[in-house]
């Protein structure tokens, strides 16, 4: 065998690498990745939030698989979660990680989304990055809603009942949609089986597909610089190498996120309420998780102004319009420079934050 010029005689390791490289084009990929750079400026710290979101998603996958080993969808759902939480060694910990990682993933996702928004990273050519991101947000909320039912305690029962009731108020498709989701006239173990299928197979497949596109697009286009950086001449802009300079920082953030998750889980392990009872009245002060609070408050306000199905329909319609507006921001702010359109996008972003914060705070104060 020919001897390598730079490394001296071929060792087992270099020979094995060559063997793999010839078949898997490792050095081509390594060459591509070694050229990747990340812009370095005073807003660079926002770049970590996508990776943090991904870290929590990976935790979701791992702890989800572990929970699957003991969880029983159907009539035994509550009992199996009770067993995991209170009897199994470290069951509380695995379930706690899954619970808190879901919450933190949504939080990181929101931070990531708004930082991307205000850095105008949705601008040409990154529109599809934005659109796949909006889809990832919706899928994540789908995960949150479907996973919430699975312990089948009082709270999850009513949360699902309310959520499906909202869906039912949609004209034409609403009743059919709710009936299909419920699998009956009430939320029963048949509903659990459906939500379970959605939660562990359908949504994971979809999220993996869309996430792959999202990540490939980031590899293709790289991190966007905010307009203040773009305005600088090329030789004034700083960059660092993705490998290993940025990656090491990225990993540090992942570990910090992971440590924070573990800390929260140990300090506040999630509990289990009483088993779901369709004949029991809804508990006082029942309310959704924080990420659904703004929508909940919006529905409540509209329900007071316009009681009945019409109010529900209009509020759902308005929320759908807001979401659509959020999604088409890259088409509104499409000139790539400052101006009326860019300003409009800024107002949309600021208004969204104000509405979300005010409604959420209002909802908590009204409990």
């Amino acid at each position, binding site marked *: 065998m020919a001897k390598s010029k730079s490394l001296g005689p071929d060792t087992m390791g270099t020979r094995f690498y060559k063997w793999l490289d010839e078949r898997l084009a490792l050095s081509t990929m390594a060459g591509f990745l070694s050229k990747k750079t990340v812009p370095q400026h005073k807003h660079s710290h926002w770049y970590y939030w996508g990776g943090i979101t991904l870290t929590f998603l990976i935790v979701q996958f791992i702890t989800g698989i*572990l929970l699957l080993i003991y969880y029983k969808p159907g009539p035994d759902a509550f009992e199996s979660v009770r067993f995991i939480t209170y009897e*199994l*060694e*470290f069951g509380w910990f695995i379930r706690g990680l899954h619970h808190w990682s879901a919450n933190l993933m949504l939080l990181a996702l929101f931070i990531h989304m708004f930082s991307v928004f205000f850095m105008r990273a949705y601008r040409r050519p990154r529109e599809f990055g934005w659109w796949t991101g909006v889809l990832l947000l919706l899928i994540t909320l789908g995960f949150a809603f479907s996973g919430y039912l699975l312990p089948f305690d009082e709270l999850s029962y009513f949360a699902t009942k309310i959520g499906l009731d909202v869906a039912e108020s949609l004209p034409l498709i609403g009743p059919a949609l709710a009936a299909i989701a419920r699998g009956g006239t009430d939320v029963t173990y048949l509903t659990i089986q459906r939500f379970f299928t959605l939660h562990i197979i359908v949504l994971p497949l979809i999220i993996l597909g869309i996430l792959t596109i999202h990540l490939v697009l980031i590899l293709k286009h790289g991190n966007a610089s905010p307009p203040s950086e773009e305005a600088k001449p090329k030789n004034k802009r700083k960059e660092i190498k993705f490998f290993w300079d940025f990656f090491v920082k990225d990993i540090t953030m992942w570990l910090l996120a992971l440590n924070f998750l573990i800390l929260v889980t140990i300090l506040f392990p999630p509990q289990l309420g009483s088993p779901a009872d369709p004949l029991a009245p809804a508990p006082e002060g029942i309310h959704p998780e924080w990420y659904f609070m703004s929508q909940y408050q919006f529905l409540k306000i509209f329900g007071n102004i316009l009681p009945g199905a019409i109010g529900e329909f209009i509020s759902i319609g308005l929320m759908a319009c807001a979401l659509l507006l959020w999604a088409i921001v890259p088409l509104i702010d499409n000139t790539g420079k400052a101006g009326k359109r860019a300003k409009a996008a800024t107002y949309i972003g600021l208004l969204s934050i104000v509405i979300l914060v005010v409604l959420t705070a209002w909802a908590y104060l009204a409990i």
Partner: protein
Amino acid sequence: MPDKTKKTVSTDPGNREDKVNVTRRKFIRAGMGAAGVAYAAALGYPVYRYLADPAEKAAAQAAETEKELVGADTLPQGSAMIFRFGGQPALLIHHEDGSWVSFSAVCTHLACTVEFQKKEKRIHCACHGGTYDMYTGKNISGPPPKPLTPFKVEVLDGKVKIARA
């Protein structure tokens, strides 16, 4: 990798610094590696306990050395029953001649559950055709490497007591 031995004999002060750096880098690398292993172990332990817990509880349950089979004393002559003993299936046979025997029903070959065959006068494993003597549990033919584990049988009024020998 720079050659370390060459650097130690070099008189160039820059090189001496290099040597220090290499050692420090090695030290930090080893430290990071150790911290990484410790972190992984700290996360791996709860996962291991989470997965191993039921198996250990089952093993603790399986440690039973005695069992009473209520009503088994009425088992007709020339017939057998399977019951769970120490987490595994076991066989109780009431022979035609009135004698009682009990064995582990787990084939010593590859752990299939064996069956008492009255007509053939043997204990048989359907998986790979192993046969055992129906009185002693001794392996007679086929792949089983050793006899079935025998248990002590005590027939009392209204029940049969099984115990590990």
